[in-house]
């Protein structure tokens, strides 16, 4: 995945959680920030689905709990 797309993912996470995007990188986990909760997760997934044009199932939503996992999934 190219850097621009990774930046887009980080931007979407930042927008929906309120976490400063400078604090988010590939290694960031959902559990690192209390703001990245179940509501934010669904919002992130819905926005990623629209932006990346890739279907994310509701079961998958709960598995994508880190930036790296999201990148790997979207890269498939």
């Amino acid at each position, binding site marked *: 995945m190219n850097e621009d797309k990774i930046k887009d993912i980080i931007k979407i996470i930042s927008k929906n959680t309120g976490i400063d995007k400078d604090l988010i990188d590939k290694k960031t986990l959902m559990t690192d920030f*209390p703001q990245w*909760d*179940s*509501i934010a997760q*669904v*919002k992130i*997934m*819905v926005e990623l689905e629209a932006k990346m044009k890739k*279907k994310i*199932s*509701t*079961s*998958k*939503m*709960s598995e994508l709990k880190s930036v790296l996992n999201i990148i790997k999934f979207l890269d498939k």
Partner: protein
Amino acid sequence: MLFYTLPYLAFFLPLCLILFYFAKSFKLDNKLILIILSLFFYSWWNIYYLPVILFSIAINYYLSNKILSKTNNQKKILLFGIILNILILVTFKYIDFIIENLNLIFLLNIQLLNLPFPLAISFFTFQSIAFLVNVYDEEILSVKAKDFFLFIIFFPQLIAGPIVKYNHMMPQFSNKKNWFFNERNFRIGLIVLFIGFIKKVYFADSLSQFVDTGYENISELDFFSSWLISLSFTFQFYFDFSGYVDMATGSALMMNIILPQNFNSPYKSTSIIDFWQRWHMTLTQFLTNHIYNPILRSLKKINFINSMFITLFVFLIAGLWHGPSWNFVIFGAFHGLGLVTNHFYKNYIKFQIPKFISWFITFNFINISFIFFRSEEISNSFIIIKKMFNIKHLINFDSNLFNNEYFLSFIGDLNLIICFLLSVIISLCFQNSYKLLLKKK
């Protein structure tokens, strides 16, 4: 057949292990052997339950293949499958509960059906629904009849979970390495099985006698004894359920199958959100994946208020899933409201509560909620809670403490005191048994 009984431990499990490990030597199919043994295990309780689970397996397998055949009606087939599974569950588990309430509300006199309650129906229904959804979402790309049969009926997880996923289980059953004896898995499986056995037979059963007597004589309870029975049930429940799951996990591991973690020291939780990430974890995952997430994502506007209403709804369902009783609905509502409060506090009140106080509030919340879980009547739950918070009893500390027969029976039973204290220490200070599985060596 129950895991802690002699027929299981002395005959069934050893026979399973021998057949499982030596199947290949006799050119037998491991999966087929596990299916036959699981059918025997399930029928041991009552063979009349068998047609229901067999029908459920057959219909869900058929529907999954229909979805996989890529017709234009995939969504309709999925919806039909979900409704059918729920209908089967409602018919066998909730129909009399519905009739009773209809009779009460509309002053009717409809006869109860008294249908037999097939063992494990709540578990295999949820597992089948999750399976159909995963097929629809293209997370499962092909299904063989034998594989699906084994996925549902595999005896260690059949009766009390954990609720497993097809994609987690099938690669393990199909991996040929898993068909041979593995010393490490056998050793750890045996230890986990033994831990589960002790949890169930010593801790849960010792506490249950005391709890049962207390709940049968609610009028005799006072301030201290009502706290004592509620706490005893809280520990009994954990040791009973997690002990049973440990025995399931240990049994499966001896056959090189790793079941997902279902308990992660839940009484160490420091919030209700934390509790549901540690207690019956596979149920929480099911509720999140198949009720909470789909409803939330279907909304045009996802916001805090909407998500809290969905959380409440999900926990009402979760409560009712535990059994056909208003007590379970209240239990679910209690936890739903607890979660809403917890989320509200986390989002809008930034004051950090000291960890010990957070734990104390959480643990007492859980303890009180379990009173609804254990009581047969809602009114009894409120009587116990009222006694737990009756200041008058607290003021009369001395006279009540020494006059209460129930309290005296507790302090007069050394085994019970030891069991209770050990329950507290183990639940709050020790690592949980699943950590053994996660250790590399």
